[in-house]
């Protein structure tokens, strides 16, 4: 059958980026977006730090705002020890935030909609926070799985539950980000494709009717903007929470 069809998943297909050189080292189009995100962050810092003014300009105020936002998040969630992890949390937060926001633009690849990417990030956070826990507390960190003030006979039930909930952290952390981004982008594509379908099926009448999916897509832009910021924040604050658990064990 001729005519347009909805290919909602084509936008997630990986290809090689950066020309033949990138293809030779399997540099993908998602890595292009990652590179762009990292470059934007660094450029923001370079531009924002140009004047180092007492009364900041717009760009300086922007990076100072980001800096203090993430810093306060670290200190409030982890405690004073959180300052050690501040650069790490800032890197993750800004990287994911820029990735989410860049993914909203047409022709930009939303790398946070790839489970391989989010799972890798989540596994890194998981392994890192567990490592911090063992580094800080030694083998006493195993006590983290034994809830305090619980009758002994309940422990055989509770300890496996605690361990399972601990092990499921990277899964929930990664799937949350991946599913949110993927769902949003799929909905966009579906509504946009639906406009083409309506026009192809009902001619001029369908073209008028496609105002409805267009309006929905406009509303979705606002929603996705919120989701992009919110999911980056959720990822960062959960990273802080896991680090808090590793440092304080409760």
């Amino acid at each position, binding site marked *: 059958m001729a005519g347009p069809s909805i290919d909602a998943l084509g936008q997630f297909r990986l290809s090689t980026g950066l020309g033949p050189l990138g293809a030779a080292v399997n540099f993908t189009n998602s890595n292009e977006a990652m590179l762009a995100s990292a470059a934007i962050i660094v450029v923001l810092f370079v531009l924002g730090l140009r004047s180092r003014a007492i009364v900041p300009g717009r760009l*300086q105020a922007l990076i100072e705002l980001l*800096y203090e936002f993430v810093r306060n998040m670290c200190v409030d969630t982890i405690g004073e020890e959180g300052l050690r992890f501040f650069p790490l949390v800032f890197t993750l937060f800004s990287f994911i935030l820029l990735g989410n926001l860049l993914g909203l633009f047409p022709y930009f690849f939303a790398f946070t909609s790839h489970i391989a990417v989010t799972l890798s990030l989540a596994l890194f956070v998981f392994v890192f926070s567990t490592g911090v826990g063992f580094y800080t507390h030694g083998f006493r960190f195993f006590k983290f799985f034994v809830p305090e003030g619980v009758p002994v006979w309940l422990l055989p039930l509770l300890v496996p539950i605690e361990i399972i909930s601990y092990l499921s952290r990277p899964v929930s952390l990664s799937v949350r980000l991946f599913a949110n981004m993927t769902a949003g982008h799929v909905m966009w594509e579906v509504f946009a494709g639906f406009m083409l379908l309506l026009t192809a099926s009902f001619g001029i009448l369908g073209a008028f009717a496609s105002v409805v999916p267009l309006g929905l897509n406009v509303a979705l832009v606002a929603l996705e903007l919120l989701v992009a910021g919110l999911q980056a924040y959720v990822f960062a604050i959960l990273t802080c929470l896991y680090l808090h658990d590793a440092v304080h064990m409760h």
Partner: protein
Amino acid sequence: MIRRTAFALALSMVPAAAMAEGTMPQMDFQNPLTASQVVWMAVILVVLYLTLSRWGLPQIGSVLENRERQIARDLEAAHAAKAAADRAVAELNATMKQARDKAQADIAKAEVESKAKAFADAKVLNDKLDAQLAYSENQISEARIAALAAIKPVAADVATTLMARLTGKTPDEATLTPEIDAALLARQAA
């Protein structure tokens, strides 16, 4: 055609169904690019982390610290200036109070002095006037006595002449003199 549109409508309502339509590229772990993007992400993230933690974040930290220090310094200077101003105002008030007190004391002293001087002057004047008054009274009484003394022979003469003219007899001087004295005394008393 209509069935197809209805299908698309259903798809748009349930995005999950749209994903199930084909295989998701995200789940295609056979694709070497799925793994390679993670490797490149690791490289990009390490570079970004090193850039931010070694350069970017400390720089912003120092900018913020500078601002905080500057604000603290300015506040301190403002506090010092205010304290100095307060001290100057207190000093000014004290000086003004002192000057006012001194002026009032001077005024009171001058008043007392001038009162005393006026009093003394008035006393001197009064004494002088009293002395003059006494002297004048004295003179008046002397003149009066003299006048009275002069009146006696005249009265005797007048009485003798009157008597001689009226009666043709010259009165006896021995009887006349006490009578005249008594009449004069009676006048003087009146």
